[in-house]
């Protein structure tokens, strides 16, 4: 291996500092014993970590977040995997246009998606909040699902489904028995990515959450407006650890990093 030049080394250190610095601050602050959030803390304890579990608003919104993240991820995969498959067969006219349109939610700010859903869904159609959250997040996640699954389909020779058909499989059987088992790493990667995206989503959720129904990130923002204690840092630490564990577990099981 080449020796790193001093400039390169400096860039690396700075990049790591920017990436990990905030997390270190939060992580340390989460173990604070103080009454208010500050860095570095005066003393250390587990009291705020314990306190997180007693806040009823966190419990309720965590449940909502999990339900919405799980539900919208499954919906986005149910819609996105067939789309990615159809696009990969690519004899469709306008496949490129479809691909482009599907990436739009990645370009359009979440605030606009949220506002549109609020005006035309929740207000105009009187949709329940959880349902509109589900719809909003699903819209947001489909591009992730299509993108990630497409890249794993690109690694697969697609004459294997024709081969399955000549051996007596219907197109549907060919997809489930031959295509799907070979892209399961990509599907798992899409699942994890979509789940985390939904779980951490703020802009879309901001418009859609109403009285009594809120997601965890929104509830955390609301909490910070009223109380400035280290429990937010403690909760953030827990969420970061949860996310890392999720990614690490799927990476270990399925090797998903090659798809994202």
């Amino acid at each position: 291996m080449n020796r790193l030049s001093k400039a390169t080394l400096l860039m690396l250190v700075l990049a790591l500092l920017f990436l990990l610095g905030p997390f270190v601050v939060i992580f340390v602050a989460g173990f604070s014993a103080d009454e208010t959030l500050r860095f570095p803390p005066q003393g250390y304890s587990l009291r705020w970590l314990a306190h997180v579990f007693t806040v009823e608003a966190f419990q309720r919104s965590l449940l909502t977040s999990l339900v919405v993240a799980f539900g919208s991820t499954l919906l986005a995969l149910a819609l996105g995997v067939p789309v990615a498959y159809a696009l990969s067969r690519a004899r469709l006219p306008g496949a490129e246009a479809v691909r482009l349109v599907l990436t739009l939610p990645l370009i359009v700010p979440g605030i606009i998606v949220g506002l549109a859903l609020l005006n035309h869904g929740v207000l105009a159609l009187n949709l329940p909040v959880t349902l509109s959250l589900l719809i909003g997040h699903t819209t947001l996640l489909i591009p992730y699902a299509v993108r990630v699954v497409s890249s794993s389909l690109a690694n697969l020779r697609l004459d294997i489904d024709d081969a399955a058909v000549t051996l007596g499989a219907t197109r549907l059987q060919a997809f489930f028995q031959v295509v799907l088992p070979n892209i399961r790493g990509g599907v798992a990667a899409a699942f994890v990515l979509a789940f985390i995206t939904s779980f951490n989503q703020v802009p879309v959720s901001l418009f859609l959450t109403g009285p009594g129904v809120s997601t965890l990130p929104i509830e955390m923002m609301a909490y910070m407006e009223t109380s400035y204690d280290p429990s937010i840092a403690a909760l953030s630490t827990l969420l970061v650890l949860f996310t890392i564990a999720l990614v690490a577990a799927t990476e270990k099981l399925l090797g998903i990093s090659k798809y994202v």
Partner: protein
Amino acid sequence: MSHLTLEQLNLAYGKAAAVRDLDLAIDQGQLVSLLGPSGCGKTTTMRAVAGLLPPVSGRIRLAGEDITTKPAHRRDIGLVFQSYALFPHLSARDNVAFGLKLRKRPAAEIERRVAAALASVGLQGFEARLPANLSGGQQQRVAVARAIVIEPRLLLLDEPLSNLDARLRVEMRAELRRIQRELGITMLYVTHDQEEALSLSDRIVVMREGRIEQDGTPEAVYHRPATAFVAAFMGYQNLLAWRDGALHAGDARVPLALPRHASHLAWRPEHVAVVDAGRGTLDGRVGARSYLGERIEFLVQTPLGAIKGSGALDSPWLEGTSVGVVLDPARAALIAEGGRA
């Protein structure tokens, strides 16, 4: 009655016509090759027979049954893909068993038939391996076993040997012929390699731009090409137009008497003798001389254009010397065709 019949078949990808008004009949137990350059419609034709491409018009009949609109998965037609198309997540054994499992055969029967199919392609001891851990030749054998184990009514092979190295290709060629004879299976074999087609086939169908140029035995296609295109594809590198008792090229005219009418004459380089100047049909100048092991090939610039001929290994002529070339009608393929050339 023919086993497979294609009647007035028209095929297209989108708006681009790929095969036009194709008529073809194949008898039970025959091995017929579709031979032609890429883009001639041979693979397209095969995909239509397999049911993977719906025809624009025309009929496909198999064993008397009209299968034109029958779904691919109910046709019982085996297909060996150019890329083998093995299922990457299944072992060799499970790849071969795939079609039988879909047919819900009892486990004992599947095991017996899979073992028999793997044995008939000479692939024992690799049953548990994934395709990624098999060599190209072994993957090829799994692909063939997977297609024959369902006892298809017809076996299609799409350039199955093109991904193998030369030595393995010749070996697999003989293997395929043996399997075809042993099982008495009707095969439609797609290739662009004339040597492969000649050595394997009962019949060769040469295609060009979606139409049949010639349909005949390997001997007929090799020795009596019906068109200038087939002649060129079969290695007749010298093609000259003939009319009114003479060969023509531009303004040049060399008298040559023929026993019957022809539009073109074609010679293989090995059938045109290079001799001393003044002793052949016409004279020219040696443009290039290549040693080919058993003979020396000369490219001779003549008034009729460049002609490739051959001389013995002790031929003295070097580049730039004047020589004669012998264009013997008895050694030529006589081609009588309409406008096309």
